[in-house]
């Protein structure tokens, strides 16, 4: 007879592993660097946080150390993963590798003006 915490932990663990699989599949199938960033970073962030919280819920009746360390790792993932994806996207844009599918709207690319202003400030 399993308790309520074990049922919650098992459901979180299954959801997390499915999202990790979807992240790997997306990074294999998507056509572009920016699409791969979108699939490979957001899906694995949700999957990793859910799976680690699931392990914490599975062991919460045995010892409280598991839950505390799991929450520490979840907070670290929630801070570090968007920062790394943001840095990679900015590096790819500054290497002039633009997306395959571009929009007809000229105001869509708002980051171009920022880079041109930075160049003007460096020259002056």
């Amino acid at each position, binding site marked *: 007879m399993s308790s309520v915490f074990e049922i919650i932990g098992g459901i979180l663990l299954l959801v997390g592993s499915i999202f990790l699989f979807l992240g790997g599949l997306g990074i*294999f199938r998507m056509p572009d660097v920016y699409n791969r960033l979108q699939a490979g970073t957001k899906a694995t962030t949700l999957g990793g946080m859910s799976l680690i919280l699931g392990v914490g819920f599975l062991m919460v009746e045995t010892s409280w150390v598991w839950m505390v360390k799991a929450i520490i*790792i979840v907070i670290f993932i929630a801070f570090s993963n968007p920062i790394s994806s943001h840095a*990679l996207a900015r590096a790819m844009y500054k290497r002039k590798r633009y997306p395959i599918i571009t929009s007809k709207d000229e105001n869509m690319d708002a980051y171009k003006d920022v880079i041109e202003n930075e160049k003007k400030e460096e020259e002056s």
Partner: protein
Amino acid sequence: MTYIIYIAFSFMIVGLLFAAIRFINGPTAGDRSVALDTLTTILVAGLVLLAYVFQRYIYLDVALVYGVLGFIGVIVIARYLEGAL
């Protein structure tokens, strides 16, 4: 509970294989570093699940340190590709 662990490990291993294929034959350096970021996150989750399998909570520290090192590596690679180093 044992079957849930088996199912979770099989999903994660298939995801790791897809990300590793993209890491091996990605066309540019940006694709490889994106795949490295994904591999790091999936491996941190796998280390936490291994800590549950072996019933040792000291293995969670290994997962945390591996996550920190992978994050610093991806940041350094991104700054190098940007041309700022």
